[in-house]
């Protein structure tokens, strides 16, 4: 199986966490790196986006968002009925799995680049669009029948949150400036990207290792869910990618997006909107199991599946 070296940094972080090393990534570095990664991903997408007529994207984007909305709607009843979870917990976990992980997307892009596989640049637009609908669905699922709900606060939390501001801001800057205009920034944002991603993954490994305790309390059902759900979501992603006529790379990245679970935007939004949900469960599953699963097994598997099915259908 092809292997992406940045993943080794994640494993190193996880190992350091498990042996209780005194290795700590300072919180300010975590913040700085996430700002860098979000901006860089936005810029890269914006440069690519300039190559496509925007009108063509609207239909594809609508399909991607609608198909993505299936994920929390499938996850919720499974967690509620089969998992016998409280409504708030089921809704919050469903929102985490419906939303997307920027870092998983970045590792997927890096993996494809390492294989020499091209992907449509506008996938970054889908990344932005997929971040918030699932959060709204999750809140609606949690609050259904109660009325109320703090929509104003949540909308503000999501849209004014740094991930949307930086991704969208980067997209617009990249789109306006174009490839030539951004040349002077290439060294910082594009050439250093992989190194920065490696350090960020080191930190994610440390954090993931610290969530193991949460998972032990959560039990086997959630652990199983954290592996089966991304496979189901990736299946939806591959089907959607094939129907939209995306390339193998684009289909793989869409599957990766669907399969990924948010652990930055979703926890922040759910903490405010559905405070009675236990964040240990959702973050433990998303970060403790699904994130490493996607990195180590998922992305290469989705690539293999996209390649195989592409050969059959396209």
């Amino acid at each position, binding site marked *: 199986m092809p292997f992406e070296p940045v993943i080794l940094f994640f494993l190193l972080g996880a190992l350091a966490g498990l042996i209780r090393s005194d290795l700590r990534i300072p*919180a300010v570095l*975590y913040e700085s790196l996430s700002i860098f990664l979000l901006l860089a991903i936005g810029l890269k997408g914006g440069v690519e986006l300039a190559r496509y007529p925007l009108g063509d994207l609207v239909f594809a984007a609508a399909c991607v968002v609608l198909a993505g909305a299936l994920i929390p709607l499938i996850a919720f009843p499974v967690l509620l009925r089969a998992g016998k979870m409280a409504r708030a917990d089921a809704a919050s976990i469903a929102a985490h799995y419906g939303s997307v992980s920027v870092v998983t997307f970045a590792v997927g892009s890096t993996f494809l680049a390492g294989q020499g596989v091209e992907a449509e640049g506008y996938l970054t637009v889908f990344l932005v669009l997929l971040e918030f609908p699932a959060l709204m669905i999750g809140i609606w699922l949690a609050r259904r029948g109660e009325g109320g709900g703090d929509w104003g606060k949540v909308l503000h939390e999501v849209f004014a949150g740094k991930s949307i501001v930086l991704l969208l801001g980067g997209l617009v800057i990249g789109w306006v400036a174009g490839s030539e205009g951004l040349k002077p920034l290439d060294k910082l944002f594009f050439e250093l990207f992989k190194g920065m991603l490696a350090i960020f993954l080191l*930190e994610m490994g440390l*954090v993931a290792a*610290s969530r193991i*305790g949460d998972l032990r309390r959560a039990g086997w059902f959630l652990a199983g869910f954290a592996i089966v759900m991304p496979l189901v979501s990736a299946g939806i992603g591959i089907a959607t990618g094939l129907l939209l006529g995306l390339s193998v790379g684009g289909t793989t990245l869409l599957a990766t997006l669907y399969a990924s679970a948010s652990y*930055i935007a979703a926890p922040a939004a759910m*903490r405010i909107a559905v*405070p*009675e949900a236990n964040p240990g469960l959702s973050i433990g599953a998303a970060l403790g199991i699904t994130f490493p699963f996607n990195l180590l097994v998922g992305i290469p598997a989705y690539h293999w599946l996209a390649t195989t099915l592409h050969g059959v259908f396209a």
Partner: protein
Amino acid sequence: MNRPLQTRKLLTIVCEAALEKRLEKELPQFGAHGYTISDARGSGAHGRRDAAWPASANIRVEVLCDEAVAEAVIRHLEAQYFTSYQLVVFLSDVQVLRAEKF
């Protein structure tokens, strides 16, 4: 000229960082004239809060105020946040200069 020290209440709230924006909005509404917020780490009923990333970050909010304001804030926190959020609240007497500021 030495001004006399006067007694006021020091209200300390240690809670998850997710509540910061809300408290900043609500404290003045209950009559607090100011507050100080600092990043915090520690351990308690919810395990270690190591501030390694936003979801495990805590803050410590300190408010100097009179007893009525402290009481109102505590009642509000109790009603609004105690069931679903990680939160420790305590109140002490302190001696301050320029008591009219608080």
